[in-house]
């Protein structure tokens, strides 16, 4: 198909419809409103369901309802609204129901502001709601990658029967870029979901419940989920390496910040500083192994985030004492510049 010039928020929507998503439920919140509006304009034409719900709580629970019938479902919001959805995300994880949840992050805590931020890293990668569970988290770095990862997120959600998060930010939602979309899936060719509730017909009735009163049974269910998460950790890690081959220092950054970091790396390379980038594309599962590999030959790492320091903890967990790890963050909706990052890379490299 041809290239189209399209915003990040619209891209989430278009790619979802192409991936066979036929139910979208959402509540307005900036900076992701264009996504809901895109779905309002296009979902019914695609033969699907669009509901502007009365709240984020209602939206995530409509998502659960639609998902249990076997439909591909998406809901979206921005940081405060994602907090409201956490109960439902925990239920999706417990019920082992697939769904794709988009978070176009904004500054926080509280109402914060509507500027780009990465303050929801912990919430996204540590489960977010109550109980022992994880959700795969994809963090696109470009609008093209939003198209590709949204498509991919539905596959992963169905494959593992799990809620999946797509983590963008206000800048990515609003940015327009040329995008080539994946070809639409043919719904008739999609595999039947044997587990879905379709009415018992003349067969045996089924139920989906997350209440498991017997602690031993609940423990068994938790370990079952863990086995699934281990499979996801084994199979689904994604990252990008940029100029790491000859690097003396490696920047670790994701999403919008990784883009800015690439500018900084190009800048310092003109000054002879061999800097590279590791960009996690999956934030959970986190690309630990590649970091361990890199740390065997590179002794300086610097983590850039639009937060006070969240992903840096995963870098520390992966690398430990094998290398020096520095951090520079801009929380609250401030977007750093390539020049600013270049200064920090310079400073790190000049320190013994």
């Amino acid at each position, binding site marked *: 198909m041809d290239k189209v010039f399209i915003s990040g928020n619209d891209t989430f929507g278009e790619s979802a419809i192409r991936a066979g998503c036929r139910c979208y439920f959402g509540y307005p919140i900036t900076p992701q409103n264009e996504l809901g509006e895109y779905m309002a304009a296009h979902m019914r034409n695609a033969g699907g369901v669009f509901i502007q719900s009365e709240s984020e709580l*209602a939206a995530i629970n409509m998502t*659960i309802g639609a998902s249990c019938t076997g439909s591909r479902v998406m809901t979206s919001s921005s940081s405060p609204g994602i907090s409201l959805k956490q109960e439902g995300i925990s239920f999706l994880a417990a019920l082992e129901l697939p769904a794709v949840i988009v978070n176009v992050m904004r500054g926080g805590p509280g109402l914060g502001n509507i500027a780009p931020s990465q303050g929801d890293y912990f919430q996204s990668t540590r489960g977010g709601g109550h109980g022992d569970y994880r959700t795969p988290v994809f963090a696109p770095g470009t609008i093209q990658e939003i198209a590709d990862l949204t498509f991919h997120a539905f596959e992963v959600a169905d494959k593992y029967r799990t809620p999946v998060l797509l983590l963008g930010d206000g800048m990515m939602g609003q940015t327009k870029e040329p995008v080539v979309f994946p070809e639409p899936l043919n719904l008739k060719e999609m595999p039947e979901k044997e587990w879905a509730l379709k*009415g018992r*017909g003349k067969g045996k009735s089924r*139920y989906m419940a997350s209440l498991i009163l017997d602690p031993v049974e609940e423990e068994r269910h938790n370990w079952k989920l863990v086995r699934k998460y281990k499979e996801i950790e084994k199979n689904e890690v994604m990252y990008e390496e940029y100029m790491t081959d000859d690097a003396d220092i490696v920047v670790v950054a994701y999403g919008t910040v990784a883009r800015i970091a690439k500018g900084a790396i190009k800048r310092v390379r003109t000054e002879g500083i061999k800097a590279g980038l590791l960009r996690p594309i999956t934030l959970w599962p986190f690309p630990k192994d590649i970091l361990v590999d890199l740390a065997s030959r590179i002794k300086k790492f610097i983590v850039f985030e639009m937060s006070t320091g969240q992903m840096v903890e995963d870098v520390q967990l992966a690398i430990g004492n094998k290398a020096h790890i520095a951090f520079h963050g801009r929380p609250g909706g401030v977007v750093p510049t390539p020049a600013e990052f270049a200064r920090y890379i310079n400073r790190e490299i000049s320190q013994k």
Partner: protein
Amino acid sequence: MNLKNKWPEYYKKDVISHYCPGCGHGIAHRLVSEVLEDLDIGGKAVLVNPAGCAVLAYLYFDFDVLESAHGRGTAMATGIKRANPDLFVISYQGDGDLAAIGTAETIHSANRGENITVIFINNAVYGMTGGQMAPTTLLGQKTTTSVAGRNPAFEGYPLHITDLLATLPGVVYAERTALDGPAGIVKTKKAITNAFQSQIDGLGYSIIEILSPCPTNWKKSPVDSFKWIKEEMTKEFPVGVLTDKRKKYKEEKIAV
């Protein structure tokens, strides 16, 4: 009255009930199952069961069930029905679930006229958690969180949520019945039949509020509980049809 010596097809057999002696849930469950069979829709039914005493309803219903988070039943039911309109969708909820924590979902699913049916069990207390005050607790009624009796100065008034819902154009049928004796049970079955038929006809949202005994938390015998519904509860919550727009909506549908 058509007395049948037959176990309902959509009601599980040989299961030991977790409900307390004299509880109304068992009666309401059986009525729902019987009507599904009468209308021949059990095979495509999906019921959303609530948090609260009926959280384990799937142990008894022999058709498909999804368990909801507290208060979110009609949001889930909306998702199910919209994703697959061929399914027959019921949300089964208690008073705390429907009229306190789930008020927004209740009102908005009704206002959208979702083609679902809500079975609303009103027993004027939080049962599962041990008898706390509910939005429908009567004035003067003693609960573990209204120990001197519900006082409007502190606790407000019993919430007539079904009367509120009946005012909405999206609600095609709303009726309040009482499990206060055999006649009340028969009327409840008739009401459920009307509501289910409304959904089959695609007319929109229907709700049956069932005043239901909770002897354990009311600290009354099952017989006295029936009496209390008849003599006290129905004074605050009179039984009867609260709205019936079936004829009008059927005609409008034909006109369309």
